Structure formats: structure tokens, C-alpha cells
């Protein structure tokens, strides 16, 4: 910012030369950082020696010896800490992905509702947003877990829907699909439909570009995806076998179960983040000036196409950057799982493993790098997407 740097100097001390001063200043700053780092490192070495802790990542191969309530990969107590790491990582990713999807859906609906011509709907959306974004996410998680999930009735008095979904204090039980022997045929049919859709899409675009004639791509693709696999099901029978949970003894057996910690965490995070996303969506839609709508109408575009081809692409450009930071926030907030004992990265690794091994530095470093990696990958992906939809100016 200083424009004095290039001015030739006449007389005066060398010490007043901006270039030299900048150099000295930077050297001092680097020395300070290195010195501080060395000081901390030295202290840590001394402290570790005194406490008899050997540093290094060898502990990752030791046997963990504790059970985990939810693991997406096979896990037993005899597995190593290294495997615990992957269990925790996958659980964190699971919550983040479900949370992001749910929060986006709720947030977009609310954002549109905030702009609804219907007064009541508008007020309700505002009420939702102002309520949930002003309450700490940890408090919401604790509320859903302790006040809602844990006070549900026990397995014997479960709330059941359609005799296949059961909600009780131990979680949500639901049917799980298994592959039957006709699944191969169904899968082949599905593949065929997808390939056909891709070719149809290409052909339609080429035809539109050469002749200007539109082709109803969406409807025909939907039809393809429905008819071909549907025919396979009709010919060969059901490709999936559903295992329905059934009450046996004091608990349910069979099917999938979502543990209450997972439900509380995803609900709280998506409800909290949705409030922020709604505001972002509202601001994005409002940023497209009304003239755009009028121009689209005067070109003869119907309402649906106006929205799809004119309004949304322009609104997305405003929405994407802040939306990215909300996704990042959600992924980072998923670490609040430690508050209710959901076995995520932080509570498993920085909690249990740290207490068992005492390898504070390695464990915290691993945990932090995981979050840094997640943050960087989400922002890289969103930057790429943002670059793709960004306005290409002259």
C-alpha cells in the first residue's frame, strides 16, 4: 500500500530506507515465530521426558479395547486405535453429509417461504429463523438428546409407523434392504437406463443446437429410468429383500437402527444451519433485480423457465460463497457430538483414545488435521462449483 518504496532516497540514514526496514522487520518476525516454535518445542520435549511419554504414532497399532455404539466399518474391541480413527472419521462424515443435505433442503424451503406472498407462511418462516439461529447449537443438541430422544418410551411402547418403522428411546428402527438373486438383472437394467439417458441428452442437445427444436429431455429421462428398471422388476421380481425390525425380548432385532445420538445431532445441526441457509437463500433471490423477471417474461419465457433459466442461475452466484461457509460450519459443529457421546472424531479420538493413551499432541494434531482437511476439501469443491457457475465477463 505504501508508495514510498520506489522513491529514490537522497541523504538520510540507511535505517530510514523503507526497503531495508521492511526486510529487517520481516526477518525479526520470522525469528520471533521460529523462536516461539522452538521454545514451545523445547518445553514440550522436557515435559514429555519428565512424564515418561514417548511421542510418535506407534500407539495407533495398539489394541483399543473399548466398544463403539455405531461403526460403519467392521469393528471389535480387539481392533487397533488406527481403526478407531477410521470409525470416528466415517461417523463424522456421516453426520456432516446427512446434516448438509437436510439443512440445504429445509433452508431452501424456508428461504423461499420468507419471500412468499402468503403473509402467514412468511411470518412462520421468520419466526423459525429468528428462534433457531439465536440458540447455541450445543444447547439444541443437548435438548434433542436429553429432553426429546431419551424421554421417548422404551422399546415395548415404541411409536410405530406401518409396522416397520419404530421410534423409541434407543433409536429409530427401520427395515434394511438385502440383495435378492434377481438384483443383478435389475442393476443391469438400471445401468442401461442411465446410459440411454446420457445418449438421449447428448442427442437432444445436438438437435437443439442444429435445428433449434427443443426436446422434452427431463420427462423422457424420467420415463426411461422408470420404465426399464420397472420392466426388470415386473419380469424377474423384487430385487431387494427387506428385513423388518421385530420386537424380541426387550429390544428390536433385524433391520437398521439409527442411534438416538445420531438422530439428535443431525436434527439439531440441520435445524440450526437451515436457519442461516434460509437467510442466505432469501438474500440471493432478492439480489436478482425485478427487471430480470420482466425481461424474461417479455422474451416469452413462462414462469417455470424464468425461474429455472434466469432467476436461479443468477441467485446461485450470490448464494454459493456464503453457503460454503455454512457447510463448513456444519462440518465443524458436528464435533459438538462430544457433548452427547456420539462416537465421532472428537469424542472417540480426542476423548477416549486421548484418555487411554495420553498421547495428547499426536491425537490433537490428527484430529485438527482431519478437520482442516475436511474444511479445505469442502471449500475446494465449492470454489470449483462457484467457478463453474460464475459470471463470465468480457
Amino acid at each position, binding site marked *: 500500500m505504501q508508495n514510498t518504496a520506489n522513491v529514490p532516497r537522497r541523504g538520510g540514514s540507511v535505517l530510514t530506507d523503507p526497503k531495508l526496514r521492511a526486510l529487517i522487520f520481516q526477518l525479526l518476525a520470522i525469528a520471533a515465530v521460529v523462536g516461539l516454535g522452538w521454545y514451545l518445542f523445547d*518445553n514440550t520435549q522436557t515435559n514429555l521426558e519428565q512424564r515418561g511419554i514417548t511421542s510418535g504414532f506407534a500407539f495407533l497399532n495398539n489394541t483399543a479395547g473399548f466398544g463403539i455404539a455405531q461403526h460403519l466399518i467392521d469393528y471389535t474391541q480387539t481392533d487397533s486405535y488406527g481403526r478407531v480413527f477410521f470409525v470416528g472419521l466415517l461417523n463424522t462424515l456421516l453426520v456432516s453429509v446427512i446434516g448438509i443435505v437436510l439443512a440445504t433442503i429445509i433452508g431452501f424451503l424456508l428461504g423461499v417461504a420468507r419471500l412468499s406472498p402468503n403473509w402467514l407462511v412468511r411470518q412462520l418462516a421468520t419466526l423459525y429463523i429468528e428462534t433457531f439461529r439465536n440458540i*447455541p447449537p450445543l444447547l439444541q443438541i443437548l435438548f434433542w438428546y436429553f429432553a426429546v430422544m431419551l424421554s421417548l418410551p422404551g422399546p415395548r411402547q415404541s411409536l410405530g409407523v406401518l409396522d416397520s418403522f419404530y421410534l423409541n428411546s434407543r433409536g429409530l428402527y427401520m427395515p434394511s434392504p438385502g440383495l435378492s438373486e434377481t438384483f443383478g438383472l435389475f442393476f443391469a437394467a438400471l445401468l442401461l437406463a442411465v446410459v440411454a439417458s446420457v445418449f438421449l441428452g447428448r442427442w437432444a442437445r445436438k438437435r437443439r443446437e442444429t435445428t433449434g427444436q427443443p426436446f422434452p429431455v427431463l420427462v423422457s429421462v424420467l420415463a426411461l429410468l422408470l420404465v426399464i428398471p420397472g420392466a426388470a422388476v415386473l419380469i424377474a421380481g423384487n430385487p431387494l429383500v427387506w428385513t423388518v425390525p421385530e420386537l424380541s425380548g426387550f429390544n428390536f432385532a433385524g433391520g437398521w437402527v439409527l442411534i438416538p445420538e445420531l438422530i439428535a445431532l443431525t436434527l439439531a445441526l440441520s435445524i440450526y444451519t437451515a436457519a442461516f441457509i434460509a437467510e442466505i437463500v432469501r438474500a440471493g433471490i432478492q439480489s436478482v433485480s425485478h427487471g430480470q423477471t420482466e425481461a424474461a417474461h417479455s422474451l416469452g419465457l413462462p414462469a417455470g423457465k424464468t425461474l429455472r433459466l434466469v432467476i436461479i442461475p443468477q441467485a446461485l452466484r450470490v448464494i454459493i460463497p456464503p453457503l460454503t461457509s455454512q457447510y463448513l460450519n456444519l462440518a465443524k459443529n458436528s464435533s459438538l457430538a462430544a457433548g452427547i457421546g456420539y462416537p465421532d472424531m472428537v469424542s472417540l479420538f480426542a476423548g477416549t483414545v486421548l484418555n487411554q493413551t495420553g498421547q495428547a499432541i499426536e491425537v490433537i494434531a490428527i484430529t*485438527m488435521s482431519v478437520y482442516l482437511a475436511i474444511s479445505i476439501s469442502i471449500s475446494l469443491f465449492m470454489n470449483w462449483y462457484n467457478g463453474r457457475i460464475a459470471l463470465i465477463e468480457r
Partner: protein
Amino acid sequence: MQTHTFKPDMPPPKQAIGVLAWLRENLFSGLFNSLLTLFALYLLWLIVPPLINWAIINADWVGTTRADCTSEGACWVFIQQRFGQFMYGFYPSELRWRVDLTVILAIVGAAPLFIDAMPRKARYGIAFLVVYPLLAYWLLHGGFLGLDLVPTSQWGGLTLTLVIAAVGIAGALPLGIMLALGRRSDMPAIRVICVTFIEFWRGVPLITVLFMSSVMLPLFLPEGMNFDKLVRALIGVILFQSAYVAEVVRGGLQAIPKGQYEAAAAMGLGYWRMMGLVILPQALKMVIPGIVNTFIALFKDTSLVIIIGLFDLLNSIKQATTDPAWLGMATEGYVFAALVFWIFCFGMSRYSMHLERKLDTGHKR
């Protein structure tokens, strides 16, 4: 000559005025809209009456023990009985006047800053910012000048929440401004250091920072040098928050037109005087709403100290709900906590919006 006399205006058509027209326009303007209205009304009917029944009509308001909660609804007796603990934590009850006095002094001391006509506001503000923290430390912590010592392990409840939030922002603001200046600096080494620092703290969740400050900080420091738990948490919060403040301030710095920098340099101002007298006053004024929003986020984040075992408002309530004498009060406790947090955060967000309108002095077209 015939003069034209105006006839009195006709009343507007019935369909365009009054309650009915408003209803027609806002709630029943089409089939889809009418269905939406009915659906919203149905939702309200599902939620509101049970909520009012639970929270007000069927609730218990008076009593001293759990046995007094006989009705179906909420048991506010629990909140009444534990109110002191929620506000002050384990602060000795005969010394709680000191907390009250600290809060009253903050309000009385800061009030002149919100009066527009106040003369020498900046000087008063700086004096307040210097004197008040010392006074607050003396009142809350004590141990010298005739006040008994109250160790920080006894602090708790809303008091602790407010202390963490206030110290957090007071520490994060100067550090954040320095980081933002460093990030915009011409010197590559400084820039790299600042960017690394900011991006690191913004990339990790606060909870891991708190974990780090509670388990790793003791390892980093030389033997015998030991901080108290609250100070360790505060260091973590300040470092974390300063990165967010830095990004907000950077937004302000970027919005200052280049001519301002050039004009300041042409006046012969050095770097610090250019920043202090020309750039920062404009940039900070522009980002005050953003800083208030950061503060709201910080205030909500203070609840995370539960993880390292400090008894802030949320943790006091969580502990109280596990008390065997008051089992099953989780809903009441968390609703109360939510209400307190909501009042603070909503108040601040309204204030930030008010500031945004007030400070909008023509930077936007």
C-alpha cells in the same frame, strides 16, 4: 358561466379495503396460497395450544420441591429454586453482590457511549475500556484491596458465560485487527504468517481448540508455569475468535478505496499513522455490524466450555438436571437456557441491524 363542482369521492370498493380484502390478498390469493394458509394454520394448531398448555396453563409456578410439581405441564419451580446457581454458579452467596455490582457498573459505565450528544466520547470510551476491566477483575476475583479472593473454579452460571464472551471479544478485537493488517501487508513474510494463522484457526472447530488448550497447553509451557483452567480456555477462545475478527476487518480494509491510502501517503503519514488516523477509523466503522455478528457467534460458542468442565450457564443447567432431587427436568432446564441465550443473541442481532442502518453514511450507492 357554469362552474364544475367536484362530487365527493366514492368510497373504495368493499373488496379492496378492510380485513376481508387484506385476508384475500395476503392469505387466500389463489388455490395454492389458500392451501398453504390452511396447512400453516393446521401446523400452528398442532404446536401452539399444547405448548401454551405445557408452558403456562398447566405449569407449576409455586413451591419449593419436586413434590410441588403435580400437574401435567412444566415445573418452573425447578428454575426458581436453582436460579441462583444458574446465574452465579458456585460463587459464594454472601459475595454475589460483587457480581451484581460488576454488571451494574458495566451498564452504567457504558450507557454514556450510547448517547449521541455525549461530548468527548472517544476519550471517555478509552478510559472506560482501561479502567473497567481492572475494576471488574478486582470485584469478581478479589484477593487484594480488602476483597476476599474468589477462585475462578467457583465462578459459574451466566456470570461465567458473560466473562468468557466479554474477555474473548476484548482480546480478539486488537489481535484480529493486527492480523487483518498483517494479511494486507506488503511484506510477504508477514503476510504468510498471518494467512497461515488465520486459516488454521478458521479451519478447526472450537471444541478441538478447547481440548488443545486444556491438554496441550500444560505441555507447551515450562515446568511450574501453570495457568488456571479458565485462563487456558480464554486463551483458546481469544486465538480462535481473533481469526474470525481478522476476516471481518479485512473485509472493511478491502472496501476502503485506494485513493485513501494514496492520499494518506501523499500527506507524508507513515504506516502506523496512515492506518490509525485514516484507514482503520473508516474500515472499523464499516465493519461494526460484522463484529457484532462475530460477537454473537462467540457468545453462542461460550457454551462449548462444557466440554472442558467449566460451569457456564449451560453446564450449570445440565448438572442441575442430573440432580436426583430434580430428575426429569431436562426440558424445563434447556428451555430456560435457550430463552436466556435467545434474549441475548436476538437483542444483539437487532442492535447490529440498527447500527447497520445508522452507520450507513453513503458508502453504498
